[in-house]
């Protein structure tokens, strides 16, 4: 089921996910991609194994636990497992489970806002050091014009998009840094839904700010 994915996440992102040092929005991208891609899942778990080695090689002898530490832990255990707050979600053909947790349900629950030309977006609640949003681009339409600042990753959830060089289908991720300037277009056969994350501030969130920004730049 995962073989047709041809555009993967980069090693430094996967290692950052294992190390636990990425912004929340990036973690969401990794968790979503890995839900569909066993190659990247195996790579993440390999980086987990590096973390296991680092932990195992952390000297234990010169760290003293407080007296009664073991008894306190047994008391925690006797208190029972903390309740899992996550509600089981029904399977959604478009949104993998980590995204459903952020949307609060399946595709039907996404609160889209139009940003013009038929393009819609929904910003997902993450920590402020990076942002995550779902994008809805009508079949054949151009992706919203966005200059790249910092790292931006875009993953296809439904449909496909293509730029000058490449074709991105469900599960594929385009990783772009600030050097990339291009105009991806949604495939003609189906409306395209993507998850996009960036550690740069979102430059515009609607049509008006976009126009204002254009004037401001002149």
């Amino acid at each position, binding site marked *: 089921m995962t073989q047709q994915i041809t555009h993967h996440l*980069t090693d430094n992102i996967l290692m950052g996910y294992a190390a*636990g040092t990425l912004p929340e929005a990036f973690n969401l991208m990794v968790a979503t991609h890995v839900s569909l891609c066993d190659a990247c899942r195996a790579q993440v778990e390999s980086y*987990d194994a590096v*973390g*296991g080695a*680092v932990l195992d090689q952390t000297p234990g002898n010169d760290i003293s636990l407080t007296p009664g530490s073991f008894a306190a832990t047994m008391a925690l*255990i006797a208190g029972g497992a903390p309740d899992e707050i996550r509600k089981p979600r029904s399977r959604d053909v478009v949104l*993998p489970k980590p995204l459903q947790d952020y949307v609060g349900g399946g595709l039907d629950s996404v609160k889209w806002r139009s940003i013009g030309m038929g393009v819609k977006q929904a910003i997902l609640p993450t920590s402020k050091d990076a942002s995550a949003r779902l994008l809805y681009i009508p079949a054949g339409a151009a992706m919203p014009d966005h200059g790249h600042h910092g790292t931006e990753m875009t993953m296809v959830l439904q449909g496909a998009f293509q730029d000058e060089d490449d074709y991105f289908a469900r599960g594929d991720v385009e990783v772009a840094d600030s050097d990339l300037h291009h105009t991806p277009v949604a495939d003609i056969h189906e409306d395209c839904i993507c998850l996009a994350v960036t550690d740069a501030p979102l430059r515009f969130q609607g049509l008006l700010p976009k126009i204002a920004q254009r004037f401001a730049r002149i």
Partner: protein
Amino acid sequence: MQDSDAKRMQWVDHMVRIRDDQDQAAFAALFDHFAPRVKGFLMKSGADASLAEECAQEVLATCWHKAHMFDPARASVATWIFTIARNRKIDVLRKQRRPEPEDLAWGPEEEPDQADVMALQQESEQLGRAISELPAAQRELIQKAYFGDLSHSEIAEQTGLPLGTIKSRIRLALERLRHAMK
């Protein structure tokens, strides 16, 4: 000669005893080895001693409660405990949610193949040895990445981690899980 391999399998065996028999002696041995390391790891990641102590206790308690989730065909016990400690760190130190991938878990009726478990545990051991034999500067860079002292763009230059074989093992385990889930 294969003492360390035997030790790895011993931790796996401890986890099985904790899972199946709520074996407190097995848990005490696990605690003695890992609790100080988890505390040290969290202190190096920026927690003060009392917070690190509190989190280490919670991490070890989670090992007990989630023993049924541990898959020895995909991770060593040290790796599994690392992931629990890391998630606790993100929760407590960075105050963020941690999105996790969709679960792939063995059903209650199935167990991973013992040969796969042995192979994965050996690969984990070899990876640990390879890391400890890296030049000091490179080893420190890896430790820094996991203690949170490097950003993801700073670890972009990381090379030389011998991950090929363990990755193939994990990939195999994932394929078997996918097959078992059908």
